């Protein structure tokens, strides 16, 4: 037995080690939990080194920019036109500083503008593996970061915290195939699920073919996933076409478009409204209404310059007529108490009164016809179903059954 074990010792150890790792793997997959201790060891061992290297790199870069280049240029300036060269160098230096400051300023401005509580973090490493779409940031659980928190930039969403360690956190990027977030389109509020594809772009799934999504449209987070607060930019639609069974919508994630250096971790998200799409307000030309007679055409032509005063339609003319008749009787529309006597619209206007624009005085025949109902007053507006059982109110001079009166212009064509 011992000889047998010695003979197959290498294979036995190999199988044991693989078996142990298989058990480890099975434990994680079955319980959907992580063996956190081993990861904490590795992250704690590697991230301080990464941070130190980053510090050395930043320091060296700063030293080269601020000292060596500056000194060399200064020496050159002494040989050449010192003033001009110095100014150019300062300009270049300040631009570099400004570019760095702009990023930090943009983050700070976004952080203060957004109602969500956020914390700024710096990307210090990527996850191991060629196809891994994850990074490490220098903020961990000691800074209040927890697993599942959203990670954003002012440009849009970046990803979510996959694991929080004391000194660092692992962030799953939006381009990872296992990433998903609820999104809604800006224009037609079409809802879908944003998923990573493993490369630069993402796709929005579960959008019916009947829904309208256009290329160039923005998608915002919908807040449905309870990770990202509603109203954060997710990305721009690059391709939108019909598919089977759902639409094929490709989205360029806006948060990852300009590289990753600094990010914001959303500690407490606050939902926001999705900004309305700004459409260019273009003036719409409306042509004047078609005149029925040359006299009307003149009235219409003046309507643009004296709007409100001109009477252009038959209804306007009738209304003017009623107002004048009622005005002569001291009736004011909308001001009389309930039960007061209504105006008698069958009475003629007093002679010498200036007729309303477009309103013609009636002929005798018309007057007689109008007075056929005697002195029965016109019905005041009454609630429905409570009309008093009286004889039908006399019709106004204008009605379809009285074509002559209905169309004063036709009855009295202009001379």
């Amino acid at each position, binding site marked *: 037995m011992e000889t047998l074990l010695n003979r197959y010792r290498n294979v036995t150890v*190999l199988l044991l*080690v693989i078996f142990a790792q298989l058990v480890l*793997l099975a434990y994680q997959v079955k319980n959907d939990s992580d063996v956190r201790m*081993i990861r904490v060891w590795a992250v704690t061992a*590697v991230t301080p*080194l990464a941070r130190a290297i980053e510090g050395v790199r930043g320091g060296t870069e700063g030293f080269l920019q601020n000292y060596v280049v500056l000194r060399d240029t200064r020496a050159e300036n002494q040989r050449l036109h010192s003033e001009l060269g110095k100014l150019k160098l300062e300009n270049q230096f300040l631009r570099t500083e400004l570019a760095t400051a702009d990023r930090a300023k943009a983050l700070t401005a976004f952080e203060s503008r957004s109602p969500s509580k956020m914390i700024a973090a710096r990307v210090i490493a*990527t996850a*191991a593996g060629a196809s891994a779409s994850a990074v490490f940031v220098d903020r961990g659980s000691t800074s209040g970061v927890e697993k599942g928190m959203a990670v954003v930039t002012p440009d849009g969403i970046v990803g979510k915290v996959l694991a929080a360690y004391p000194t660092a956190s692992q962030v799953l990027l939006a381009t990872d195939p296992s990433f998903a977030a609820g999104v809604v389109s800006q224009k037609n509020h079409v809802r879908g699920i944003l998923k990573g594809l493993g490369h630069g772009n993402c796709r929005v799934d579960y959008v019916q073919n009947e829904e309208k999504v256009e290329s160039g449209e923005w998608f915002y987070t919908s807040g449905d996933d309870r990770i990202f607060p509603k109203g954060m930019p997710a990305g721009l639609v690059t391709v939108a076409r019909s598919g089977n069974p759902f639409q094929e919508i490709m989205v360029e994630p806006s948060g990852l478009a300009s590289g990753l250096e600094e990010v914001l971790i959303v500690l407490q998200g606050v939902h926001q409204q999705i900004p309305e799409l700004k459409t260019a307000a273009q003036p719409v030309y409306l042509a004047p209404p078609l005149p029925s007679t040359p006299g009307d055409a003149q009235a219409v032509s003046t309507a643009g310059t004296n709007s409100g005063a001109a009477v252009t339609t038959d209804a306007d003319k009738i209304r003017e007529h009623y107002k004048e008749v009622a005005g002569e009787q001291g009736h004011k529309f909308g001001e009389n108490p309930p039960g007061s006597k209504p105006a008698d619209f069958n009475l003629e206007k007093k002679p010498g009164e200036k007729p309303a624009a477009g309103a013609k005085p009636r002929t005798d025949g018309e007057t007689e016809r109008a007075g056929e109902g005697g002195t029965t007053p016109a019905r005041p507006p009454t609630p429905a179903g409570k009309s008093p059982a009286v004889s039908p109110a006399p019709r106004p001079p204008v009605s379809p059954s009285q074509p002559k009166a209905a169309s004063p212009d036709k009855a009295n064509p202009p001379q």
Partner: protein
Amino acid sequence: MRYSDDHILLHSQRETQISRFKAWVLFLVPLAAILFQVYFPLFFQFLAYLELPLIVTVYFALMRRSPIGGLLVGALVGLAQDSLSKNPLGMFGITKTIIGYVAASVGLRLDVDHALIRLILGFIFFVFHQFIFWVLSRGLLGQQINFETQRTLVLGLLNAIVAVSLFHFLDKLKERT
């Protein structure tokens, strides 16, 4: 140069000389390889395609010519790599354990000091590594991942070239006997 079987295959115990390394080399080189993989792709994205932890595992396994030593180095490097990835612990671990074992077994039979052999082995082990990882991803995690043959072959060649250069550098860290 003609390279006959006599030069490739090792026939005597005298030829199978085991290389020895100081403890700090065995600790720091894999750590540096992992650190390289998680840090430098931040600035040069194409460097993410370099599998330095694999190259280092293969190197130590080949040079130490001990299957148990090779598989242990592979397991430790793989688990460390797993810890820094989003995969469950064990994916890279199992893959590199197998690679370490096979590499050490190959090292017992081939003259691994020759550059051409190193180039071929670097290529083969990279492809083998990617294949095992793909099988594990599909078989154990149920992930629907395609094996991109063309891409793997190109990356294998790239990693093999880097491996030859790195092996040359690491040779200088061997203990002199």
